[in-house]
């Protein structure tokens, strides 16, 4: 724990008072212990919301792709009836998968963002504040979660407009929010960890594109795990996106799900992601 900063300079107090900047002589009292982490997370999440409030373009443009998935892929495959969905329309089955996919696509860009912040000096400036690296990464991970959550709301509304029979139970929707935030926290940390290894935007963009679609197709977002070949089932079992989709389906549609397992896996994945990204953050700072 850090000690309180030394006392302010008294000799300048009169001059500072005259200029109306007397508060700038008094260092704030540091938060201590467990209160540091939620304070930093809240600060970084607030920044994300402020940015979205100034420019909603990204929100609208990012809504296009999930809307197309639901409109074209969802409606077409609902007619074909080629994918076993356990008795629910395919578009209903697909909607939670598309929510998870669009949240993952947002989170996976956080590695590129952190490299941009390094190049712009923002990262170094934040690292010179009394913010432990793990708190900075956790803050960014949850900021990705907040952004993904807003995206999830948009996709849920589109799905509702297309007639998907979603639950409106507030408790279940709260559970959906928690799952989306945890999933996004993991994928943003995965991306920031890779950023800490490859260190350049160009390399990260290549790797990001290389892993995003396999993560999506290697999950249960589009089809049940049971119809996958054995090797893909094995990938799906270690793919956190599968657990996110399973939980979202269970909460939003009421299909059989392993909610405790899904939640546990996502918490563990997010914790491991935060640990890895925090450990690698120092490489970006050099």
């Amino acid at each position, binding site marked *: 724990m850090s000690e309180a*900063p*030394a006392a302010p300079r008294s000799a300048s107090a009169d*001059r500072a008072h005259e200029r109306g900047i*007397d508060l*700038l002589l008094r260092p704030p009292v540091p938060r201590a212990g467990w209160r540091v982490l939620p304070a*930093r997370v809240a*600060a970084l999440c607030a920044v994300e919301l402020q940015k979205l409030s100034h420019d909603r373009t990204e929100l609208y443009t990012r809504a296009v792709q999930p809307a197309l998935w639901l409109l074209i892929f969802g409606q077409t495959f609902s007619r074909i009836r080629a994918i076993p969905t356990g008795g629910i329309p395919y578009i209903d089955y697909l909607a939670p998968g598309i929510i998870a996919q669009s949240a993952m696509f947002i989170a996976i860009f956080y590695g590129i963002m952190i490299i941009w912040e390094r190049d712009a000096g923002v990262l170094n400036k934040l690292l010179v504040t009394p913010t*432990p690296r793990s708190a900075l990464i956790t803050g960014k991970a949850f900021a990705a979660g907040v952004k993904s959550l807003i995206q999830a709301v948009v996709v849920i509304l589109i799905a509702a407009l297309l007639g998907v029979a979603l639950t409106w139970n507030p408790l279940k929707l709260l559970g959906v929010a928690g799952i989306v935030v945890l999933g996004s926290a993991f994928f943003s940390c995965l991306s920031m960890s890779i950023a800490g290894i490859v260190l350049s935007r160009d390399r990260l963009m290549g790797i990001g594109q290389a892993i995003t679609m396999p993560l999506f197709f290697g999950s249960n977002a589009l089809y049940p795990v049971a119809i996958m070949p054995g090797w893909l089932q094995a990938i799906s079992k270690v793919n956190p996106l599968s657990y996110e989709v399973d939980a979202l389906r269970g909460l939003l549609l009421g299909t059989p799900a392993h909610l405790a397992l899904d939640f546990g896996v996502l918490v563990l994945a997010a914790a491991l992601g935060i640990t890895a990204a925090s450990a690698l953050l120092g490489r970006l700072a050099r």
Partner: protein
Amino acid sequence: MTAAVTCTALAHAFGDTRAVDGFDLTVSEGEVFGLLGPNGAGKTTAIRCITTLLPVPSGMVAVFGRDAARDRMAVRRLLGYVPQQLSADQNLTGRENVVLFARVFDVPRRERAERVAQSLAAVDLTDAADRLAGTYSGGMVRRLELAQALVSAPRLLILDEPTIGLDPIARTGVWEHITAVREATGMTVLVTTHHMDEADQYCDRVGLMHRGRIRALGTPAELRRGLGERRGLAPTDPLPSLEDVFRDVAGSGLDDTSGDFRDVRSTRRTAQRVG
């Protein structure tokens, strides 16, 4: 009085390149100290060790008596840092940019708005506070970064090339604000710059850095007078400039050692963004 910054035999290498090599420095409390040198001299590496961004593998760094290697959080609470790049977030307003730093320095909610307002007022950005930083001029962005650094009432303000890429009027404006805030708060300022004329005009003391260590140290007048005496100039002759002093200290071959590709790219990017 405790020194604001003490570096003793500081060394830091990147692979085989010894960026800082036997760096000794003491910055007194309340002074404006200029660390001068070409790209690649080791200024930024030294600053990064002082700001805790880099570890201290060899030697010792202390800020107001706190060890930068072992007591990082305490050191960070004493610092305000403005990096070379334009680091304000252009997608936030000026006020939101400062609020973020108020929050990460634990400014309590009840005094946050007032403290942020005072920081913005200190750099004459009150009227522009609710505009997006992306609409600011280069000089305004630099002042905004100064406000971000001031909001936590730092005892040591570290500025890495604060006027790079700015036109002469904006440069003067930035320095006037630094000087005014320093006079009002009594804080210590450690600044790196390429501009010898700025150092001559605004710094109490300067350290000329070359190949990883300080090669000359003193007030600008002392250093210029010293060179004049070494050259046997008459009292009526004009004194050499700080640039002359620097060339004298560093010797020939400056052009071959002044920064790698990344240094130059970073400098040009910043200059381009300042516009």
